[in-house]
């Protein structure tokens, strides 16, 4: 179906190759997962599959890619549209029309299909992605998860043979992600669709994969079946780490498989003590009582009563649109509650002057780039020092603690997702707020970047900062959080120690907890310590 013959590509001459002499064959009807650390060129690789690279990017290109019998050197991306469907990282930016139904028909209109076929395929696509209820809705009013599903359906409707998806589940809650992925698997099985997915949350996609492509920084690509490829992959989901720890060969790719093989280890773990829950320190950093917030007639938050202690890391979980972001915005003083109160050191945050507020509470929004204004990283750090009357260089020091070395002259927009997040975090922390709020910080981060983020947050926690993280990433919660709060339709439906909360809801349970259920082990590290380092 897809054949790369010694294909090379780089964005600029003299820069390192993103793809270096790649030879690769992908068969029809395979579910392929593209794996690699942040910034290695996964998106670039995906875009070569229909010619978006180099047509839209420019750059140096050599070799040949043949997709479905058509050479990409003689076909434009538009000419490949009937064969390759491409869904980019940011679905909202890809919308051309105004309504869900029109968006689904857009590609087919361009292909010149007759209205009868078009109508039928739109209905099919609505069914596959369960979009029936919102078919008439304007695209601007959809939630993040719905947008992602519409973007996929819009491409599916044109009935391509190959579907290319760049991080399709990063904006989705675990339930919605599962739904999208199983819909895709069904298409792979039923109609022989070839699916190629790049995804950081490998724990979500690996169980479905037939083939894994591993990208390395020097432009080299390895292809193979998941179990053997993951054994050497630089980044690995918990299940693979667990397999490596227990010396499994071949590795287990699905929780089900792992459960079958974990029998004796589970028996040994049964009489081991679970790690103790970190005690909640005295005092209170932030409290909300009966907090209600309405957007028009819609209730975004309903009587939320919570108490956040200093020196503790809280995870805020819940479906897309359950009110997590709203709650963070209220706590950061951006929104004014309709009823009830949020108190930060005895004062409602929305009443404070912004310049006073930032000394007490800091929020890193979903797109951390929003917080950065300067044209250079160094300039950004210096401004933060000046604004908060810090010693020159202290913000930079913090950035370097997380990121290691960083080029001071780079534009914040040119940084990788993880680097930008760290920079925004450092800039917010420069004011030394007592409460730090993070909205979906692990989007686009690979496992290594996630680990260094966790380290950084734990350091802040030990300094007495109250950290609240709204996230869909259950593995991140398992590794980092002390306490967890679950929201649904704006109400708090569960709260308690992270272990208790996430182990007892199947949707939020991390892989290790699923494998060792009903024992409440959360991470590979815990299991390793309990087993005494070695197996």
């Amino acid at each position, binding site marked *: 179906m897809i054949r790369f013959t010694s294909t090379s590509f780089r964005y600029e001459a003299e820069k390192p190759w993103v793809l270096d002499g790649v030879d690769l064959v992908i068969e029809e009807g395979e579910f392929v997962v593209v794996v690699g650390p942040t910034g290695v060129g996964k998106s670039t690789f995906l875009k070569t599959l*229909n010619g*978006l690279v180099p*047509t*839209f990017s420019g750059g140096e290109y050599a070799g040949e890619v043949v997709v479905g019998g058509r050479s990409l050197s003689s076909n*434009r991306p*538009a*000419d*490949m*549209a009937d064969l*390759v*469907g*491409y869904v*980019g990282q940011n679905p909202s*930016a*890809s*919308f*051309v*029309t105004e309504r869900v*139904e*029109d968006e689904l*028909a*857009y*590609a*087919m*209109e*361009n*292909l*010149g299909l007759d*209205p009868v076929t*078009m109508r039928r395929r*739109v209905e099919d696509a609505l069914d596959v992605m369960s979009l029936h209820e919102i078919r008439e809705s*304007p695209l*601007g*009013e*959809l*939630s*993040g998860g719905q947008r992602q599903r519409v973007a996929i359906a819009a491409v599916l409707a*044109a009935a391509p043979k190959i579907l290319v998806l760049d991080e399709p589940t990063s904006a989705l809650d675990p339930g919605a992600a599962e739904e999208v992925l199983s819909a895709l698997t069904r298409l792979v099985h039923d109609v022989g669709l070839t699916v190629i997915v790049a995804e950081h949350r490998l724990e979500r996609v690996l169980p479905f994969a037939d083939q894994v492509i591993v990208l390395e920084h020097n432009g080299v690509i390895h292809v193979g079946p998941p179990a053997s490829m993951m054994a050497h992959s630089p980044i690995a989901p918990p299940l693979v780490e667990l397999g490596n720890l227990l010396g499994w060969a071949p590795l287990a790719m699905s929780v089900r498989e792992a459960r079958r093989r974990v029998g004796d280890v589970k028996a040994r773990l049964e009489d081991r003590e679970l790690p103790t829950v970190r005690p909640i320190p005295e005092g209170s950093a932030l409290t909300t009582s009966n907090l209600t917030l309405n957007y*028009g*007639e*819609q209730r*975004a938050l309903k009587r939320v009563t919570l108490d956040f202690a200093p020196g503790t890391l809280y995870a805020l979980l819940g479906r897309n*649109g359950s009110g997590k*972001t709203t709650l963070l*915005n209220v706590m*950061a003083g*951006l929104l004014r509650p309709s009823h009830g109160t949020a108190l930060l050191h005895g004062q409602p945050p929305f009443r404070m002057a*912004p*310049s006073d*507020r*930032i000394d007490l509470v*800091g929020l890193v*929004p*979903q*797109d951390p780039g*929003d*917080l950065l204004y300067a044209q250079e990283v160094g300039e950004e750090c210096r401004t933060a020092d000046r*604004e908060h009357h810090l010693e020159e260089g202290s913000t930079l020091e913090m950035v370097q603690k997380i990121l290691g070395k960083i080029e001071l002259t780079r534009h914040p*927009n040119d940084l990788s997702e993880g680097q930008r997040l760290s920079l925004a975090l450092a800039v*917010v922390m420069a004011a030394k707020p007592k409460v730090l709020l993070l909205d979906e910080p692990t989007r686009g981060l690979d496992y290594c970047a996630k680990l260094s983020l966790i380290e950084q947050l734990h350091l802040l926690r030990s300094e007495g900062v109250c950290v609240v993280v709204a996230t869909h990433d259950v593995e991140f919660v398992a590794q980092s959080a002390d306490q967890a709060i679950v929201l649904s339709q704006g109400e708090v439906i569960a709260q308690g120690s992270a272990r208790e909360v996430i182990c007892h809801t199947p949707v939020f349970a991390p892989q290790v907890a699923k494998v060792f259920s009903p024992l409440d082990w959360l991470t590979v590290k815990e299991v390793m310590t309990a087993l005494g380092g070695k197996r």
Partner: protein
Amino acid sequence: MIDDRPHAVAWWLWALGLAVVAVKLSNPVPMVALGAVIFCVGYLRQSPAAWGRSLMLFVKIGAVVILVRLIFQMLFGERIPGHTLFAIPSVALPSWAAGVSIGGPVTAESLITAGIVGLKLALILLAFGAANAIASPRELLRSLPGVFNEIAVAISVGLCFLPELINAVQRVRSARKLRGRPTKGIAGFRGIVVPVLEEALEHSMELALSMGARGFGRTSSTPSRRRSALCGVSAILGVAGLILGTYGLLSAGSSIPNPGVLCGVGAVFLSLGVVASGRRSVRTRYRPIPFGWRSMVCVVSGWLGLVGISILQSSSPDATSYAPYPLVWPTVSVAALACVAVGLVALAVSPRPALRPSGRSKHMAEATSR
């Protein structure tokens, strides 16, 4: 349910017809009646979607237009002699500014004349405002022939872009608040505009990419040179005919013979040219709304009145035009009112818009908080 709705093009043609009627009229009685007719139809048939709420906006703009016209007349208008209502202190201007006057006596005649001109403008605005509220311009764009596809897409993407921009501004504002930076004043303005524009640029690149990947701009074989030349000539002839014809129709006492026929021939040539060049695009349309008898009736109801008014204009000028010399009440002509009322027929052939279950507020939460 969608199919028994008149076509978007039909609504815009209806509005165009009534706007031309407004241009022809200068008698306030049928003019006010025309306003009522347009408002009625617009209000009863406005779409429940977001753009449907634009009717009241146009009503307000119309009111402002009339008001501004009156105020300008009072302050700077030509001093028409007649019944003085009150006087505004006048400013003596140097001799080189002859013909310009500021202040002076304000007469009833001058106000009436200005009011009628203002009302005319307001009616034209209202007609298109109503069309906009009933059938969104986007729907109209969708119905353009293939050759305009690229332009239509560009406009419709632009229309999409505005709400995106507002969203972006809100986001950047709250981000600035998060860093304790000003969101007002010059510094605040600059701090918001630069990131918003940066984002807009990035957004448009991503959009272009997505459109390319989804087959935008696919064409069938390129047409022969002779054929494209023929298309061009026919389109140019058509446009020329239309322009001359319209000029003849709208300006009283022009020397262009048979302007109506000229218009018709021009329209035929133009459509031939447009349809023939459109062949090159392979594009098809999803769920096209047929241009059925309801649409025809809708168009006719907009233009029949124009025919009637044109006839009245020559047979009994008082029914359609009015000038306040002498200052008497304008003629109330049943015939003129009937001509205007024909516009209401469109109501009979269009169904009442279905109320969309309000899914709107459902996700506002997320949209606003971002």
